[in-house]
């Protein structure tokens, strides 16, 4: 990743180049490296998959922060807040082309599929954007959007690693494993949006609710007749005054909606672990399982 940044720093300057490959939690890279090892893929290839995933993810974050007008990311000022949206969008474009360059090293199939994954991510984002303000969100539709928005890139990683694996592994279904992990990540992030403070999350609390996005805890509140009315009252209040976000967060906690969201996360974790146990390199399975559990247990 650093080599990637260096390669373009001569063209755009080191300060801007750094944003293209700035590392965050590197969850996608860890997924690629660990699942790749459990599939017996050559380390050099898994690292290429990891870089392609991280760069495509960075591209989506750079664009997302423009869409959301976000000022903080990973606890640092976003490029759009420092240099403006034009610069941030162009940096995102560079990050995506670099991701494609990495995929090209894996062959044309990987590029073709990465293009499809990027399309699904963008469609998921668009769907989410136009569902802002909608309270007609079911668990199924929420999960479907998450599968596209966050799951598609993990699914690409799983599918690409599957192609690279020299071992029999159909039962582990790495593409589905990846997609489920991506969905889980979105679910955990949506819980964090209500539970973590600004300082810990590196972004504003209850931001999704403030911009009119119903997420997993809200889906459960809406689905329950005894909670729906109060949720809608608080939701309407939030449209008038952003300070009502803390009331909404408290209601979701005290009404058990956050707990239901956590239980749903555990169900998805169960599915992922079931697939993980079928990965062919037994010695690596525990580490993948540990990674999945750690991801799910991130203070949610």
């Amino acid at each position, binding site marked *: 990743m650093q080599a990637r940044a260096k390669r373009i720093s001569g063209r755009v300057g080191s300060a801007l180049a750094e944003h293209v490959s700035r590392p965050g939690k590197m969850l996608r890279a860890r997924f690629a490296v660990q699942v790749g090892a459990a599939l017996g893929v050559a380390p050099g290839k898994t690292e290429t998959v990891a870089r392609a995933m991280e760069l495509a993810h960075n591209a989506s974050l750079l664009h997302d922060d423009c869409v959301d007008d976000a000022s903080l990311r990973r606890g640092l000022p976003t490029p759009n807040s420092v240099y403006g949206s034009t610069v941030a969008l162009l940096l995102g474009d560079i990050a995506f082309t670099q991701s494609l360059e990495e995929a090209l090293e894996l062959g044309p199939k990987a590029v073709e599929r990465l293009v499809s994954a990027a399309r699904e991510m963008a469609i998921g984002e668009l*769907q989410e954007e*136009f569902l802002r303000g*909608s309270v007609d969100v079911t668990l199924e539709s929420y*999960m479907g959007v998450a*599968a*596209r928005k966050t799951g598609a890139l993990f699914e690409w990683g799983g599918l690409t690693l599957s192609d690279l694996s020299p071992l029999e592994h159909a039962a582990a279904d790495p*593409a*589905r494993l990846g*997609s489920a992990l991506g969905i889980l990540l979105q679910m955990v992030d949506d819980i964090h949006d209500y539970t973590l403070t600004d300082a810990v999350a590196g972004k504003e609390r209850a931001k999704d609710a403030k911009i009119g996005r119903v997420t997993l805890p809200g889906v459960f509140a809406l689905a329950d007749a005894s909670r729906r009315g109060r949720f809608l009252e608080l939701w309407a209040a939030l449209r008038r005054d952003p300070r009502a976000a803390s009331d909404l967060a408290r209601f979701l906690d005290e009404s058990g909606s956050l707990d239901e969201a956590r239980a749903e996360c555990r169900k998805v974790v*169960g599915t992922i672990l079931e697939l993980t146990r079928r990965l062919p390199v037994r010695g690596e399975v525990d580490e993948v399982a540990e990674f999945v559990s750690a991801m799910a247990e991130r203070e949610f």
Partner: protein
Amino acid sequence: MGYADLIRRAWRTGRFAASVRSSGKKGAAGVRPGESRGSIRGEMEEIVRRESADALGFLAPRGEGIMKLAPFVKFREEKFGAVLFETRSEKVFTLNPTAADVVRELLAGASEGEIGERLKGRYSDPSGRLADEAKALVRQLRDKGLIAD
């Protein structure tokens, strides 16, 4: 007018509008009638409902006797019904609305017998013909390696 003709005309005249629709007059806010954010949201709610099967496989209960799509198979709802996409061989299987219903039930965790019963009720088919057809479809999908137990 063909695409090549459109390009020639655009070069000659400097007018790049491809059709009446794309050259239609815009309102003050640059939005055509019927294309407001609210109307797109309604359409998006419908699309998202249609595509919710993307994640149904993860929501379905797990256990003995429960079928699911085989690894590398994806289900996508379409206006005409649905398609099953086998991602490794890149084969696409088109499903009519009733066949799509069968796969949707399968994804939701229904057993073979339950699928038949649900279709019987849904399509008012006391003769059970649809249930038999559903069983035959499940058998075909299994033979093609598209579903696994």
